[in-house]
């Protein structure tokens, strides 16, 4: 931003001359772009944004938010669709993750130019449905495409229903997991004879494992993204807090129902880990990855999607369920799911919708590609195969999908939402020692209360 943005008005003669010339050049470039796209005849999104109608005959327009390793896999799957459906054109558009994506999806749908299929997090899809931006999928058309409830893992399927109706098809579950350095853990005596990690199912076992790992590396026990990081502190808190059975919100977000005793217990436990030097209180996202990849930590806590990072780093690592420290015999873990949905279309075109469902089906049929990237497939025809069970370390934590705890319902909640900003900031401040657990909890409650009492804009 700063001075180069429009409206700041570069002053002076030089500025005026420059901007006039720049404008002409820009205009010429724009015209050239238009000519180019019309010449090649491709209906680019830039051009379709300027015209009133979109070329939809026989093609599928698909929007997603996948970057990094996920982005590469998604492109493979898009190519897979084009190979299996040569008669159907596909134009896939990838936007930046999070709010920029949801803003564009909402505005395009309101502006009657929605894509045919779009990805949405399960926790964000709910608000889109509430805003009336998502097409309901009828039992008949789902059955015709072979997308019936019995083909999906129960938890993501049921969590995705709104009022018992189907609006989105779950592609996966992506839980918070535990990465461990097998060399470090072996030296620390934490591995069982078969090479698997001994369970860390109590606060003491958890703390012990981290201090043993620290003794081996000499640097730290585990790494966690805390500095300049919003969702990660929330995710690890939510894992422990939901293992204790705690709830954050009720009545679709209009009521804050934090259980102070449980929340405090978790915050104190988390703070004790950073205070005792078992988790560094000041690492950012990249730093938490780099420190673990360098072998300076025994454990790393993050979503399973970081698997490709460590595979690329060719380091000795394993992955398993995030430890059930507080849950006893009942396991719970923070998670979300990617879903595929059909945004509300300006005109009802059954053929177009059928193509959309074909595309969704094709994505599910390629669940193997997706699962290799770490996500737990929701599509049982692949999830139940021996092939997936042998996919290591991905299938180690496959049971997390049944124990998934999604962000609570509410118009301000979900992946990348203000709910995560408010909770993540408070918890992060506790982890880094800037706030006491009591103060962090109080801040979280006050800010959530303000959101809960705001009338829903949806």
């Amino acid at each position: 931003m700063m001075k180069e943005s429009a409206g700041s008005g570069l002053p002076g003669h030089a500025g005026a001359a420059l901007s006039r010339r720049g404008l002409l050049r820009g205009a010429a470039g724009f015209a050239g772009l238009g000519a180019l796209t019309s010449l090649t005849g491709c209906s680019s999104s830039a051009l379709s944004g300027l015209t009133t109608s979109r070329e939809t005959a026989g093609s599928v327009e698909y929007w997603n938010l996948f970057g990094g390793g996920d982005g590469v896999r998604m492109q493979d799957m898009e190519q897979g669709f084009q190979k299996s459906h040569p008669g159907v054109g596909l134009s896939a558009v990838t936007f930046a993750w999070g709010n920029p994506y949801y803003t564009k999806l909402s505005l395009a749908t309101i502006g009657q130019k929605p894509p045919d299929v779009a990805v949405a997090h399960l926790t964000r899809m709910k608000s889109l449905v509430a805003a009336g931006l998502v097409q309901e999928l009828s039992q008949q058309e789902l059955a015709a495409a072979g997308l019936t409830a019995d083909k999906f893992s129960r938890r993501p399927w049921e969590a995705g229903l709104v009022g018992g109706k189907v609006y989105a098809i779950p592609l996966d579950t992506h839980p918070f997991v535990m990465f461990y350095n097998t060399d470090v853990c072996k030296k620390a005596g934490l591995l069982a004879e078969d090479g698997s990690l001994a369970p860390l199912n109590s606060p003491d076992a958890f703390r012990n494992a981290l201090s043993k790992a620290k003794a081996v590396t000499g640097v730290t026990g585990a790494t966690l993204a805390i500095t300049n990081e919003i969702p990660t502190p929330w995710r690890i808190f939510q894992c422990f807090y939901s293992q204790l059975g705690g709830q954050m919100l009720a009545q679709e977000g209009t009521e804050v129902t934090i259980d102070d005793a449980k929340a405090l217990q978790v915050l104190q436990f988390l703070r004790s880990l950073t205070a005792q030097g078992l988790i560094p209180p000041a690492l950012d996202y990249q730093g938490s990855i780099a420190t673990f990849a360098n072998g300076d930590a025994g454990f790393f806590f993050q979503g399973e999607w970081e698997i490709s990072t460590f595979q690329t780093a060719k380091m000795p690592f394993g992955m398993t369920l995030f430890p059930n420290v507080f849950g006893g015999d009942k396991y719970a873990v923070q998670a979300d799911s990617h879903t595929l949905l059909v945004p509300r279309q300006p005109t009802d075109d059954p053929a177009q919708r059928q193509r959309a469902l074909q595309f969704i089906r094709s994505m599910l049929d390629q669940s193997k590609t997706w699962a290799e990237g770490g996500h737990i497939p929701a599509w049982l025809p692949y999830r139940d195969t021996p092939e997936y069970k042998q996919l290591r370390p991905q299938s180690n934590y496959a049971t997390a999908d049944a124990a998934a705890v999604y962000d609570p319902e509410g118009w301000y909640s979900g992946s990348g939402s203000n709910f995560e900003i408010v909770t993540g900031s408070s918890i992060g401040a506790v982890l880094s020692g800037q706030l006491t657990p009591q103060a962090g909890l109080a801040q979280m409650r006050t800010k959530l209360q303000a959101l809960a009492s705001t009338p829903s804009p949806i």
Partner: protein
Amino acid sequence: MTTSTVERGRATPAPTATSSKARHEDRAALGFLAPFVVLYLLLIIGPAIYGLVMSFFNTSLVKPGLSSFAGLGNYAGALSSSDFWSSLWHTIWFTILTTPPLIVLAFVLALLADRFARGRWFFRLAFFAPYVMPSAVVALIWLWLYTPGLGLLEKGLGLIGITAPNWLGDPAWAMPSLALTTVWWTLGFNFVLYLAGLQEISRELYEAASIDGASPWQQIRYITIPLLGRTTTLVAVLQVIASLKVFDQMYIMTSGGPNFTTRSVLQYVYDEGFTNFRVGYASAVSMLFFLVVLAVSAVWFRLVQGQEKEV
């Protein structure tokens, strides 16, 4: 505001020509201005008016239309929100931290660079180069420099025995760190303005002064600084406005953290408008911020202008 700075310098053309010729020239001028005026109306004035209208409604990002009328509810909500006031303070704090170094340093560096008869182009390029980079690139470079545990700054300071702070993670250091990045990034713009101003000053004045026995310091104090008064006004006003508009650096480098301590008012607008879908409320906050910028600029402009006249 900024245009008046420039136009003050020009003499108003006397109305001597015949009126028909003047009108003809007016029309030609309008013709030349049209492309800009049309875009300006379309992209700046239009949305601003729409924003003003929205600020009185409960407009939602995910609903078409303006939604229900809110009266002054959005304004009342903003004024009673501690988040609004704290984010406003963060923006002002950032402005306070960045404006003085961006003026003084730019002046000093321009003065030094101006001494080089040969190779001045190199300094001009070297100081201006960062300014050409997009904010995202600058933010990423500095994120790596600041990264705790691995960053170059921390390692570098460690070598000479200084324990580096947690630049972006410590609430006390986060804003100064962002200010440092911004100074490095945007210094070049003011530097170039000053350098241009310096080259406008006639060499004869310095010659005369040195014959009269003025020391280099006296030459700077009594020739350079007064004659650069106009440039300083321009730089100062532009700088304050630019600093008040801060958004990118925080958005990319700290997301407003740690624990909201670097959330600027524009990020608050973004959070409310785009994350919370409350466009009506966000518009009201924008309007309030607009008033603040207007007031600050007016006062600041008067102040700097007054000083210039004194000199």
